């Protein structure tokens, strides 16, 4: 069986680094361990949209947010997806590539496994996920160290995307409690958050006239 090369990163490390790099950018987070471990490292953040189910939909949702009037007002819109989720919604990278949203950053935490269901293997160890994204018109980085992740995210902030950062993570899951809110509340909070720069810009304009 093909296995992923060694990596020094855990999912928890990667999520903490992502939150540090994108503290105020809209971030769409995929279900299961990613949502739960992000809550462990960052708590409930107003710029985070927790996708509690809908596996495979994060790239498409992130594209929609990035293209929307209120989302486009943010310099970057980030999606955090797993390798299993990316492969489930793989055709979205074709549509993102064709649409070329420069503010979109898709970060794929790749452990070669379906973490939420018991660690069963995915096809990812046999595939070049970043290469597939490049063929669709993405800028990419392949990452397996904390320093590499920091540099890649800085690059993704300053040079136009769309970006796909493939981050190899280890198999370790952190025990984390279930997150069982009313999803309507999550949608309302995120929708309001996306309006923030638009409102701020309107206020700035009215103040200057």
């Amino acid at each position, binding site marked *: 069986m093909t296995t992923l090369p060694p990596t020094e990163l855990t999912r928890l490390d990667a999520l903490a680094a992502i939150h540090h790099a994108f503290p105020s950018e809209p971030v*769409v987070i995929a279900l299961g361990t990613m949502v739960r471990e992000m809550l462990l490292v960052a708590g409930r953040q107003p710029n985070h*949209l927790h*996708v*509690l*189910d*809908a596996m*495979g*939909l*994060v*790239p*498409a*949702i*992130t*594209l*929609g*947010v*990035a*293209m*929307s*009037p*209120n*989302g*486009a007002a943010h310099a970057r819109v980030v999606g955090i997806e797993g390798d299993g989720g990316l492969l489930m*919604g793989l*055709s*979205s990278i*074709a*549509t993102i590539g*064709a*649409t070329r949203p420069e503010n979109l950053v898709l970060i794929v935490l790749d452990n070669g496994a379906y973490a939420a269901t018991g660690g069963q293997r995915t096809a990812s160890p046999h595939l070049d996920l970043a290469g597939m994204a490049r063929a669709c018109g993405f800028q990419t980085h392949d990452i397996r160290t904390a320093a590499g992740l920091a540099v890649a995210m800085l690059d993704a902030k300053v040079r136009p995307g769309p970006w796909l950062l493939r981050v190899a993570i280890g198999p370790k899951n952190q025990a984390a409690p279930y997150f069982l809110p009313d*999803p*309507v509340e*999550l*949608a309302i909070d*995120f*929708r309001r958050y*996306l*309006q923030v720069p*638009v409102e701020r810009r309107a206020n700035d304009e009215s103040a200057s006239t």
Partner: protein
Amino acid sequence: MPPLTTALGIDSREVVARRADEVTRAIDHIRPTHVLWIPSSTLKSVIDSIEVRAREGTWISMPITREEEGIGIASGLTLGGAKPLLVIQDNGIGNCLTALTTFPQPYHLPIVMLVSQRGGLNEYNSMIHTLGERVEDILDAADIRTFLLDERVPVERWATSIVGAWEHAEMTHRPVAVLLNLLY
């Protein structure tokens, strides 16, 4: 092979064209910010018009690869203040049921889908009946509010019904499907 109804003096092509024009008129009236589509033969003129309007700058038009991808993109657009419209086939409803029932429905996002429906009377493709005739039941079982337009709705009411469905989605904060059977 033209449907036998042609021999009874009904020009099905004219019926389809007239209904498609009303769908176009409704979309022009709604003026969505984005139109996401997977084409169908009965809505060809509708998609053509969507593309023309996009070139004129009226909205952004984009082909999508799969229906659930369209649900995801439309949901993200809605969260960010856009007013997207989806145009898909009934054959693709099975592709997007999970996406619908796990994202825009529980998160209360008003996503409007214009769904071309096939199957039943006047259908000429034998492969299409199996899913097409059950789509309304499937959407009903998934608790997706559905409005059906076929020959039982006068063509003069098609545009107002589509606009009404758009308003219904906004009012109820839920996904809404409009089934458009242009052949029956």
